[in-house]
């Protein structure tokens, strides 16, 4: 019988109750092809260190919970194959540029606060239409292309860890909030550019981004926040130079007026809500 392959996890441990600063701990586990870093963490918790804490949920790269600093690169633990990393030692640390709550769990609240401050939702004059819709908003496939890429964000925080400005500046909004602000500015259904501009024109805007491009390099969903931020800078500069044509928000699709029920098709039951 051949000896199983092993890999050594170098984990960044931190227990606030102990009063000790964060420290590394090495744990060796057997590894099989196809095992992800997240699978390895579960093996460690079951067999070696039951106190290890981390966040995970879907284990398939759609929830954004398991962002970690793996071998010096922010990535999702569930999306990272141990064998593909190719090193005998796999360093797993919590996402940098966030305070550590415990072990591999970062405090993501500053990211969500910055996100909320940039009003990441549809803003229109007719907000009653948004909350009690009478019909759909008209939007062409071309208009959808302007912002669709940026809607794939799963708020995992990997971009925030890769950004050099986030490394030193606590006042910077960060790639995720700024890219999401542009996702709404570029959405033809939204009329909130004026409101968001009030925040974006200040130091909370994209002005401390210098296109290092790291956010786009590490994004696990291909959202390309760097592209969103530069497109937003373009809009803001043209707006300052009075060259930006604010498009009108999409209209509501008109109700069809000529509807004849086909023969033999029964009426729908009454709504229950």
């Amino acid at each position, binding site marked *: 019988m051949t000896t199983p392959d092993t890999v050594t996890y170098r984990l960044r441990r931190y227990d606030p109750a102990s009063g000790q600063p964060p420290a590394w701990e090495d744990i060796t586990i057997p590894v099989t092809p196809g095992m992800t870093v997240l699978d390895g963490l579960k093996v460690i918790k079951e067999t070696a260190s039951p106190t290890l804490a981390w966040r995970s949920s879907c284990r398939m790269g759609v929830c954004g919970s398991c962002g970690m600093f793996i071998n010096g690169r922010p990535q999702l633990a569930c999306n990272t194959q141990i064998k593909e990393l190719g090193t005998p030692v796999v360093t797993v640390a919590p996402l940098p540029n966030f*305070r550590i*709550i415990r072990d591999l769990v970062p405090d993501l609240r500053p990211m969500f606060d910055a996100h909320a401050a940039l009003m990441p939702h549809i803003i229109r004059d007719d907000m009653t239409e948004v909350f009690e819709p009478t019909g759909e908003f008209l939007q062409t496939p071309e208009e959808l292309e302007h912002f669709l890429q940026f809607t794939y964000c799963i708020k995992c925080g990997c971009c925030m860890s890769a950004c*050099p400005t986030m490394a030193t500046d606590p006042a910077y909004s960060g790639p995720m909030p700024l890219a999401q602000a542009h996702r709404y500015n570029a959405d033809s259904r939204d009329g909130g550019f004026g409101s968001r501009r009030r925040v974006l024109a200040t130091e909370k805007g994209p002005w401390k981004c210098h296109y290092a*491009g790291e956010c786009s390099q590490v*994004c696990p969903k291909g959202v390309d926040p*760097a592209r969103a931020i*530069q497109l937003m800078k373009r809009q803001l500069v043209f707006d300052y130079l009075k060259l930006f044509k604010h498009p009108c928000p999409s209209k509501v699709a008109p109700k069809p007026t000529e509807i004849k029920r086909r023969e033999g098709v029964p009426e729908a039951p009454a709504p229950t809500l």
Partner: protein
Amino acid sequence: MIDNQGHPNRLGVWGWLGGGKWGAERYLYTLHRLTGLGLLLYFLLHIFVTSARALGPEAWKASMGRVTGPIFTVGEFLVFAAFAFHAANGIRLVLIELGWAIGKPIEPVYPYRTSVHEQRPLAIGVMVVAGLVALAGGLDFFILH
């Protein structure tokens, strides 16, 4: 509930320098900062050194005399090279940050072709231009003089 303030975990200035094995554009950003600081420092001194021309030929010759010598020649060439890089990369940054060189938003299909890939030919071109200008300067500084 989180009942402690959490342990600080920012990368700090190490995060400016790379922090890990990431993309080349990260290092262009760092070099742009370094050359900018170097050029600023030189420029602030340059204002004072060249202001001597307002005081006549003797003052001018004295001021120029203070900045001649092999160390100053090499130093001035480094300033020239820094300018070549900073200007070429600056052109690239203007094209990127005003949205021309980064391509349109796309439907992300793995492997993702991000704006970083779109601008890479521009980045390479810009580095070649900077290198050629620095080379021309080096020729002028060290060989032809």
